[in-house]
């Protein structure tokens, strides 16, 4: 005997988020780095910062750190992102 049943998933259509427009160059750009605050992010992002400036010509790298690495970034950080041309968000253990 056939059986009819309901879909258990959220059935949302497209994801509510989309990728930001890609930059064609990093030259002269202000780039933000949002760390989740774990110990391993420090040396990793130090190296990323150097690469962005020395190899790709970024004008400035702004480093920020979330206060809780398991929670979304605070509103103050999100406000800052509006002044950046690009953002790198990363975790580290």
């Amino acid at each position, binding site marked *: 005997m*056939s*059986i009819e049943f*309901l*879909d*258990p*998933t959220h059935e949302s259509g497209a994801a509510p988020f989309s990728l930001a427009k890609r930059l064609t160059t990093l030259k002269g750009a202000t780039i933000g780095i949002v760390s989740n605050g774990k110990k391993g992010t420090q040396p990793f992002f130090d190296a990323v910062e150097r690469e962005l400036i020395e190899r790709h010509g970024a004008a400035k790298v702004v480093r920020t750190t979330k206060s809780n690495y*398991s929670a979304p970034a605070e509103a103050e950080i999100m406000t800052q992102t509006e002044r950046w041309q690009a953002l790198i968000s990363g975790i580290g253990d």
Partner: protein
Amino acid sequence: MTTAARETQPASALGSKRYVADDAMAAQEFFHSRGWTDGLPVVPPTAQAVNACLEWALMPPGQLVGIEPVRQRPITAEKLAVNAVMAGCLPMHFPVVVAAFTAMLQEPFLLHGATASTGGCAILIVVNGPVRTELGMSGTFNALGPSDRATTVIGRAIRLILCNLLDARPGEVDRSTLGHPGKISYCVAEDEEHSPWLPLAEERGVPPHASAVTVMAAGAPRQFMNEWTTQPEEILDTYAAEIRANMRHYSIWPGNYALVVPPQLRAHLERAGWSKADVREYVFRKARIRRSEWRDCGKGSVVGERGDREYAAFGSPDVVLVIAAGGPAGGFGAVIAPWYGNKSRAVTLAIGACVDCEI
């Protein structure tokens, strides 16, 4: 038998997409093929069964139970009911599922972090009040395992909801390194009948005799044994030692530890006149380590300059969750550690309570 199912058109107020399979086995395979189960068989969520849950809870299908804050995903009563039916819930179990998930959606619980973390916690649900006996829950034998139908299916419903509504499947949003068996189902009813202690929910502000749930982002139970003393202090020293072990081996940060106290140990505490508040206060004082102890555990590289600093397992005695549960014999107890300190806080909510209704 076929694993294919056909999409059909809805014919009632329920908004979920519908499928038709040739038979119950075909439906099972369809659910497995979509990744909609936890690996166990599910009860096909028919419209009739889902409506029965909603009617029992007096909830219209579209009622908004809450919004998952990180991805802004709305959680409706209908979708909770679909997953509850799949887990094996009867209509009378559904209000407990709704209360537990509503509690999980409260900001202090940090739902996304708790369910996505590599830390691998599960959602522990502690049930208090008359609903326990109404649903045939048992807080005695095998209390932290599959002790009875109601706790098993309610705990499982929460896991299926996380998988199907928030994509917390392994390797998707659930990034657990190890996880633990409580992720299948982790629900316990407090044994209020065999203890003079205040029920957990009442200690946490719910009126006496009201039914309630407490949810906690929880590690696996750490079971210990001490049947060689009748002294409250010595019994609780074993609890504190188990907490300290967790602080040494897992996380040093303070949080909502749960202490599960079965009857044999409880009897000694109760006979000596110790209340839950006394237990919490004693363990608060004893569950502390110095950071330098990490050197004994292979973590010397992160001791740094703070080796002499003392770390307490709790910010205050109030955050300790003391739960009376377990079978009548055996000098065992258990500590359930929080997922990574106090990033997620335990939330207690009365069943049927509205968290954002205007009074």
